[in-house]
């Protein structure tokens, strides 16, 4: 095949001229049998590059200023896949779904492409003029709005700006930037400190509306540390215990051993009642022993408190970032009372710029009063995300300038638009949430005429232009003295550069300031960042839009989550449109009935209802920010009116119940240890079965997978990783409505118990690679067959599309290309993995156990003359999993984890009695129940 073109050697424009050819040449054009006839060698080949062999670089992706270290796979200079960086403390080798999809955002066709002045293309020189004017009079009348950042370079520049342009005002703002905990901790400790968690030491964890494995900037590390304490080998394994107290279901709620539903306004009360119990137990001053919990809550609050007291310092109470400062103060007190060693405090990694505020209010006021001459907005999308009571009147500024990578609402509102850079295009030095210094290096030349934040700030300061790499390299010895720039680049992080914890002293008088009475409103609304779109910044990413929500399995929409009981009382069902009104602002949104939601509450995700120029995001859902006011925060009393209209929601799994079937067994740790009925029931679902069929020879590597459901939170990073690795197409809302989504891996979500708190367990379901595969013998053309290493192979180019295989698949994990779903042209085809065939219309496809990785490893081993055992093969889903719930390896190797998992008492195969002999097994969901709570 052709040698693709070296990007490094070409200018950006040449890149675009040739990109199409490069894409075709890299084998991503699909099933057509007539390949391109041209072959274009490099004029000068970059020495580090072998065509067809992927290269990997470390860099960092940033959200609200916090870095997550990643490794980026590039093919001939084209980033195609993002993996976690095992050497980075905020990743530990994993990523979330958002990072997986970031590679598609790089190629977003609606990126800002040129510098414009009111829509008319202009040059960087005119931007320089604007900035020069903003420099005048020491920056008076100039306001800069940045996203929170930890960039060391930006920190330096901002310090210089403070010194030379003292009249200018800088604001850091993002809607979900965690500021309340800093305020709460300031009130208790006297300093705005961030909480650090050492969850591998915690025996008992109480999450108060805290999605510690989901939307926290350090969630990946939390998830890993948490899960490492839950690797159940047998009934006598030691396991931590998680209590989740929340309004709407989160991945943390899925992982929890006990989950309790409360209204948003009751969270603080629960914290206060816990403190009261601790006071009663003599852990804190007795004057804090009121108010004690009453009603049904009393029982479980007392039980949790006793569990916490028993665990002592090996316990952690965590409040969610959405909670107000007073709750954080309470929780800091709780942890102090328990003398918890698992919760420590350290200064934030984010840059503070002196008078710089993290409050949008003054800027909004200044704008409204016409006091802003030059408004510079760097990144973010405040036009869309600003609270309803702090809307930015950008048009009141004399001049406004937006630097951003996407043509969003804010870009539309500003006079000047400067294309920004994607994280994979820029040089910078940033910090992770724990302070770890993480370099950012570009994987690709900026696709468009992009400029970095630092370049903009430096130009404002009147600096001479300097190449991005030189800027970093020159500053490195100054910023991170005593470390090697090149080592840091190779590793993706500077080792041991985390900010150390500081000792704290609790001001007990500041702890219990939270009001002790919950809201009396009939209904409460909880606003949350979307698990994938976050604050809407990823709303133009079709991968994320089509990724089913972990709980509701909703795609391409947001909907007001409501509990079954409340829905029944209001007479609504899923899809009925309700009007939610907060403080006079009303929003019509479809309802979705979710077991496990607190009664009399609604939960709505932000990030939808975009109105920018982004083609995919437009018209998807409604913007919950319109109900968000700084006065009321993320939880507010809400008035509900039911309309008689409906919207059909694209939900990928409509059924919640197990329907009396045994596809997802679960047990408590105690039952696994002592209950012979449970053990024999699990044993029934594995082991040999009578069969008339013989076996083909099973020598060499025999691939198998084991998935531990105890540590699966349903976060869906694996689904996204699978899509990114295997070029699975996006099909759109209409097709999802007709159950035609193409994800090879789906996360089956079931309510596993009868009680109203609705314990949910998740079961990742992809091709099970059955030894006696029912799909194979019904294929009329040998398009699906078995390999000698135990893979159920799917040969796309042989498939004629009878779909018989899907009918006979008891797991229904096969996906069919009903239309020509693949993209033919456009920027986003560059995100494709050239090692995987892009499927044509009319062809069946399914999980391959990432056969391209297996075959690559096999070839590498044989070329090197090593025996191939496959220890180094990892599937995309396995690699990305934050909790390492997925294990993959050869059954013929006694040393692999997957072989060992087969011997555990809770190992089972789904639909074992069908005799399909699946190679994917599961470890049943084990809950470490508090005996007091049954």
């Amino acid at each position, binding site marked *: 095949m052709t040698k693709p073109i070296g990007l490094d050697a070409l200018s950006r424009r040449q890149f675009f001229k040739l990109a199409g050819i490069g894409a075709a040449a890299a084998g991503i054009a699909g099933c057509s049998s007539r390949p391109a006839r041209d072959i274009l060698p490099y004029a000068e080949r970059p020495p580090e590059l072998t065509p067809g062999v992927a290269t990997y670089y470390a860099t960092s992706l940033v959200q609200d200023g916090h870095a997550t270290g990643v490794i980026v796979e590039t093919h001939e200079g084209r980033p195609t896949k993002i993996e976690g960086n095992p050497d980075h403390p905020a990743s530990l080798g994993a990523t979330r779904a958002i990072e997986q999809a970031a590679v598609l955002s790089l190629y977003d066709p609606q990126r800002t492409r040129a510098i414009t002045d009111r829509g008319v293309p202009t040059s960087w020189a005119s931007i320089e003029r604007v900035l020069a004017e903003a420099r005048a009079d020491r920056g008076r009348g100039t306001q800069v709005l940045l996203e929170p950042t930890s960039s060391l370079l930006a920190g330096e520049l901002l310090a210089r700006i403070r010194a030379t342009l003292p009249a200018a005002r800088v604001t850091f703002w993002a809607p979900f930037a965690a500021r309340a905990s800093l305020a709460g901790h300031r009130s208790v400790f006297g300093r705005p400190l961030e909480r650090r968690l050492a969850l591998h030491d915690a025996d008992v964890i109480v999450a108060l509306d805290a999605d510690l494995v989901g939307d926290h900037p350090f969630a990946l590390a939390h998830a890993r540390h948490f899960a490492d304490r839950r690797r159940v080998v047998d009934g006598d394994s030691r396991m931590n215990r998680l209590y989740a107290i929340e309004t709407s279901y989160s991945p943390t709620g899925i992982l929890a051993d006990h989950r309790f539903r409360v209204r948003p306004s009751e969270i603080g009360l629960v914290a206060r009642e816990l403190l009261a119990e601790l006071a009663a137990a003599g852990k804190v001053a007795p004057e804090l022993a009121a108010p004690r919990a009453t009603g049904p809550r009393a029982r479980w609050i007392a039980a949790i408190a006793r569990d916490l007291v028993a665990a002592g310092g090996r316990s952690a109470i965590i409040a969610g970032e959405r909670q107000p400062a007073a709750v954080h103060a309470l929780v800091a007190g709780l942890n102090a009372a328990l003398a918890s060693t698992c919760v420590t405090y350290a200064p934030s990694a984010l840059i503070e710029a002196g008078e710089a505020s993290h409050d949008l209010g003054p800027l909004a006021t200044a704008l409204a009063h016409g006091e802003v001459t030059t408004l510079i907005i760097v990144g973010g999308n405040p036009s869309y995300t600003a609270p309803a009571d702090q809307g930015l009147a950008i048009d009141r500024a004399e001049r406004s300038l937006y630097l951003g990578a996407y043509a969003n609402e804010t870009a539309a509102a500003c006079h000047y638009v400067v294309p920004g850079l994607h994280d994979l295009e820029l040089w910078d030095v940033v910090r992770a949430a724990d302070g770890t210094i993480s370099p950012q290096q570009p994987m690709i030349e900026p696709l468009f005429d992009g400029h970095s934040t630092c370049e903009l700030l430096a130009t404002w300061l009147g600096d001479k232009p300097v190449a991005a790499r030189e800027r970093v390299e020159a500053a490195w010895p100054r910023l991170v003295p005593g470390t090697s720039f090149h080592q840091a680049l190779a590793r993706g992080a500077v080792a041991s550069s985390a900010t150390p914890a500081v000792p704290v002293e609790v001001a007990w008088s500041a702890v219990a300031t939270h009001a002790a009475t919950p809201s009396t409103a009939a209904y409460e609304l909880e606003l949350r960042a979307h698990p994938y779109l976050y604050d809407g910044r990823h709303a133009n990413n079709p991968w994320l839009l089509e990724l089913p929500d972990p709980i509701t399995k909703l795609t391409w929409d947001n909907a007001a989550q409501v509990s079954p009981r409340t829905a029944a009382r209001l007479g609504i069902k899923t899809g009925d449109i309700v009007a939610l009104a907060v403080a006079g602002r009303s929003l019509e949104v479809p309802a979705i009935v979710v077991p496990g939601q607190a009664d009399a509450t609604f939960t709505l995700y932000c990030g939808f209802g975009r109105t920018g120029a982004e083609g995919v995001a437009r018209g998807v859902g409604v913007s919950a920010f319109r109900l968000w006011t700084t006065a009321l925060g993320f939880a507010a009393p809400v008035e509900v009116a039911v309309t008689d209209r409906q919207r059909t929601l694209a939900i990928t*799994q*409509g*059924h919640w*119940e*197990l*329907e*009396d*079937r045994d*596809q997802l067994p679960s047990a408590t740790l105690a039952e696994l240890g002592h209950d012979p009925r449970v053990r024999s029931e699990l044993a029934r679902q594995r082991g040999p079965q009578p069969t008339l069929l013989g076996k083909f020879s099973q020598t060499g590597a025999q691939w198998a997978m084991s998935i531990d459901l105890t540590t699966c939170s349903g976060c869906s990073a694996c689904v996204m990783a699978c899509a990114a690795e295997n070029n699975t197409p996006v099909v759109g809302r209409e*097709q999802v409505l*007709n*159950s*035609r989504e193409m994800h090879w891996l*789906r996360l*089956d*979500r*079931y309510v596993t118990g009868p009680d109203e708190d609705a314990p949910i367990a998740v*079961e990742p*379901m992809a091709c099970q690679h059955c030894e006696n595969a*029912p799909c194979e*013998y*019904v*294929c*009329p*053309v*040998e398009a699906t067959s078995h390999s000698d290493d135990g893979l159920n192979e799917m040969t796309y180019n*042989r*498939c*004629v*599309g*009878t*779909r*018989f295989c*899907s*009918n*006979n698949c*008891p*797991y*229904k994990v*096969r*996906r*069919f*290309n*009903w*239309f*020509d779903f693949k993209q033919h042209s456009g920027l986003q085809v560059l995100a494709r993995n050239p090692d995987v065939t892009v499927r*044509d*219309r*009319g*062809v*069946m496809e399914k999980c391959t156990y990432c056969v391209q990785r297996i075959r690559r490893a096999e070839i590498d081993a044989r070329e090197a003359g090593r025996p191939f055992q496959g220890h180094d093969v990892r599937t995309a889903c396995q690699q990305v999993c934050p909790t390492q719930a997925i294990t993959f390896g050869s059954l013929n190797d006694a040393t692999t984890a997957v072989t060992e998992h087969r011997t555990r008492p809770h190992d089972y195969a*789904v*639909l074992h009695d*069908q005799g*399909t002999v699946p190679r994917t097994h599961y470890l049943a969901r084990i809950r470490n129940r508090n005996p007091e709570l049954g």
Partner: protein
Amino acid sequence: MTTAAHDDVLLGRPSDHAINEQLLSTTWRPMTRGWKILFAICSAFTVLLFALITLTFMRGIGMWGNNIPNAWGFAIINFVWWIGIGHAGTFISAIMLVLEQNWRTSINRFTEGMTLFAVMQAGLFPLLHLGRPWFAYWLFPYPSVMGTWPQVRSALPWDAAAVSTYFLVSLMFWYLGMVPDLAGLRDRAPTRRRRIIYGICALGWRGSTQQWRHHKVAYMLLAGIATPLVVSVHSIVSLDFSITALPGYHSTIFPPFFVAGAIFSGFALVLTLIIPARRWFKLENVITLRHFELMAKMCMVMSWIAIYSYVVEIFLAWYSGDKFEIYQQIMYRPFGFYAWTFWTMIACNCLVPQLFWSRRMRRNLKVLWIASLLINLGMWLERFEIVVVSLSRDFLPSSWHTYMPTWVDLGILAGTFGFFGLLFLLFLRFVPFVPVAEIKQMRGELEREKVAA
């Protein structure tokens, strides 16, 4: 059972010449206004069919309502239904020939035509429903440059073999039986052009000793071969379902159940077609009330086999203790999302044929005709139950999803009716649809029996 000496299968004892004139004249008499209107309607639907086929080929199977889990839908239902229709034709022309049921003579050509055209409709669907129909030839063994072969453990190559064999054998059987009548047209058609065309088709048939001698043996042999063939074809079609593990598909009673159902629906369609044809072509003396009585009785017998099968399916689901089968057969089909299709099916297939206990009903053509339409509907729904309802609720509730046909699905189904009708109208127009030579021979036999009596 020996030849039943029922003399009311041919009324009036016309002479050989009268039979010849009456039965051949359908090919040259000017077609009635009714025929022309029907022809126009059927042509329109045929155009619709091929337009929608083109649309499906251009855009993909996604134009249909199928999804995962309902990977099969209307196309397979229609396939099974149409191929089942064909079975009654072969049953009447072949099995009843072997069983020496002389009343089949009057209607065998008619039903064979129906078989052929129904199988043609059926044959469209396996091709259409492929994701990549242009590779359909991969289902047949040929020395490929890929070195690959069909996978013959699948029921689909069996299907391909069975359906193409069935079509070819039906065609040959039909043609062989028609050669003497084509010769009749060669000798009798009013214009020279027609005589030449029919003459070429007749291959020079002249009724010589040798020709009749081999013709008779070959015809009986083909009938004998077609007898197990017709049983095998729908058995194999049923294996498309019963070799799988899917609850609702995985059933060992399918082969006989399908064959009986096929004959059931086929007899119903014969009634649907022959009642108007007999009236328009004034064939009351050749196709008599006795024929209708016998067909009504056949329907009733087949209905009871269907009832038995339904009961056995439900009983075995319960008796097996298999929770998936129990859910599918006992909970979901009668009481689930598609319950109305189940109860309509029961009404049409089990209750309607019970009318035929009454001799008055069996001889009332209006009742018969409406009943035949209802049975056809019922049998179509039976396949809907099997194909769609089973798929929409299988093992894992996470993958459950309902199926709804799109307008393209409905249009293609309607289009096949048009195409079938078009072919049938042309058949009525251009070939003698009651076998002339055989009727003459039957008249002779009837007379001899009368003399003997």
